């Protein structure tokens, strides 16, 4: 018998000034989701079932950037993506551009288990979800007031934020952020065509 183990994450790159109550809220959600996984492992569940169940919990809670609480596109919509991989036989499934499926990770699992492919995206993924009878909801279910505010901030600063909850460090106003971005642009410090300052880690 091997020893079971589990690790989870809710995103990397956290504002050092994140308010204490937000930190405590994030830790509570992490502890709750971790416990879901531990209880399943103690009951003998397979690794594949545990990762799907835990990520579903994390998707359903709006605290992190996935499922409900997802970051917004510049059009103000939600386009989600997910993947799952089974170390036994290295099988895998993935979806992108999903906008109504309540738990994208379960659709990725269905792609792995019930389709001849390993990756479906956009309309094809949405159609397959309905074919498989997965729960679908209106796109508005995923959109939170907080994210609408963060999208506004990002647009004003003309930037792409990795973590939709924190403005870029050192720029307490959007104009300051825009100025910083302009400045970097002129200095030519870019990555993938965007000013490197934009890449505030998630």
């Amino acid at each position, binding site marked *: *018998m*091997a*020893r*079971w*183990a*589990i*690790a*989870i*994450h*809710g*995103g990397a*790159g956290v504002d050092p000034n994140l308010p204490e109550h937000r930190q405590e809220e*994030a*830790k509570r959600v*992490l*502890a709750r989701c971790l416990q879901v*996984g531990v209880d399943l*492992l103690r009951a003998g*569940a*397979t*690794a594949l079932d545990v*990762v799907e169940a835990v*990520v579903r919990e*994390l*998707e359903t809670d709006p605290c*992190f*950037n*996935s*499922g409900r609480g997802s*970051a*917004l*596109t510049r059009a103000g*919509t*939600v386009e*989600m*993506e*997910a*993947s*799952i*991989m*089974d*170390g*036994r036989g290295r099988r*895998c499934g*993935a979806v*992108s*551009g999903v906008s109504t499926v309540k738990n994208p*990770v379960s659709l*990725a699992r269905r792609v792995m288990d019930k389709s001849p492919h*390993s*990756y479906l995206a956009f309309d094809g993924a949405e159609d397959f979800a309905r074919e498989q009878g997965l729960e679908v909801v209106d796109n508005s279910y995923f959109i939170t007031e907080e994210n609408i505010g963060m*999208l506004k901030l*990002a647009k004003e600063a003309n930037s*792409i934020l*990795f*973590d*939709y909850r924190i403005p870029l460090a050192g720029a307490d106003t959007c104009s300051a952020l825009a100025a910083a971005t302009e400045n970097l642009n002129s200095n030519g410090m870019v*990555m993938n065509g965007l000013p490197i300052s934009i890449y505030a*880690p*998630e």
Partner: protein
Amino acid sequence: TVGCAVVDSDGFTAAATSTGGLMNKMTGRIGDSPLIGAGTYACGHCAVSCTGEGEAIIRSTLARDVAAVMEYKGLPLQEAVDFCVKERLDEGFAGLIAVSGTGEVAYGFNCTGMFRGCATEDGFMEVGIWE
């Protein structure tokens, strides 16, 4: 982005990652999370889930590299994680969590903090944000 990596009592591993992507992203943009080998990977050696700057994670095939470094350089899990976070991300920012087929847990990140939690069968359990 959220993720989970697990090894069960039979020694089998699995990993999963899910995300809404980037705030203010272009519609149609695809990041690292759905890309097997970049944001998510699982094999006999380990299971890995990554988060952070998608473009850097994709270019470095970060999740697969942790398994490859274990397989070809013979490094144990935490050393493999540290090596990949330190040597593979160029100027990108990212974090990852991982478990090994033998029941170890590990994580690494090169940015400020990562929301994470881990637990093992012998009773260890930790939830954290900062270094």
